[in-house]
């Protein structure tokens, strides 16, 4: 125990943890770009690099405990990394996919059901007005800002 101070800094554990943290927190940034939004490549890459470094760090801590530190905090950082990865995967691959199927939505070739709704200025706008005024209407249903 007296040799603790002379052991090498196990950098791979900390850097690995930082990579995992970056993977966990950076989706809002990567969501701006379609490629990294539709599938979280960038986040998974961060997690992968983080995971490799954490494993490497743990091997060092437990394989050469006389040289490297990190048996305890290494285990803590690795657990946190796994939890972040699990939570990220749960949200991205499960929660965000809980969209109800829409079997009754109007299909291609059908007439779009007519409607009249208020626009942002409180003015009534109907689909037939919109359709009559342009070559085409891109109708975007979204969840809302509330």
């Amino acid at each position: 125990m007296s040799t603790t101070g002379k052991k090498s800094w196990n950098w791979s554990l900390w850097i690995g943890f930082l990579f995992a943290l970056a993977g966990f927190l950076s989706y809002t940034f990567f969501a701006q770009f379609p490629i990294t939004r539709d599938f979280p490549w960038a986040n998974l890459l961060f997690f992968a690099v983080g995971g490799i470094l954490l494993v490497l760090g743990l091997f060092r801590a437990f394989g050469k405990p006389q040289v490297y530190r990190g048996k305890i905090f290494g285990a803590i950082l690795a657990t946190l990394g796994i939890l972040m990865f699990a939570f990220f995967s749960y949200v991205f691959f499960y929660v965000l996919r809980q969209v109800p199927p829409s079997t009754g939505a109007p299909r291609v070739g059908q007439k779009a059901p007519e409607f009249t709704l208020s626009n942002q200025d409180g003015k009534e706008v109907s689909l037939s007005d919109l359709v009559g005024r342009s070559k085409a209407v891109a109708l975007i249903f979204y969840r809302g800002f509330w």
Partner: protein
Amino acid sequence: MRSFQQRLPDLESRGIQVVAISVDTPEINRRQRQKLGYTYTFLSDPKVEVIRRYDLLHHGAGPKGTDIARPAEFLIDSNGIIRWVNLTENIAVRARPEQVLEAFELTEQPASR
């Protein structure tokens, strides 16, 4: 939503009008448009009447368990006929303006010859 604002000049130059629909009130829409710099039309369906008619209801997914719309995009031609539909299965994955432009070019071809 932001990507549609970014590509709005390309969409509008082809005569495609962009219209967004959600449960948000006109007041929220006005504020959000200003805040985010969106210039296309935002329509309010707080009673989810149109959202229901289009079978796009996401039951209980809104604030305090209210009903909201699931994301969906339609391209409607000048006769009111639907030319393209996109029903995502992942909330984070929405249609891109490029898809709308592509769908528009494809359906325009026969008419323009």
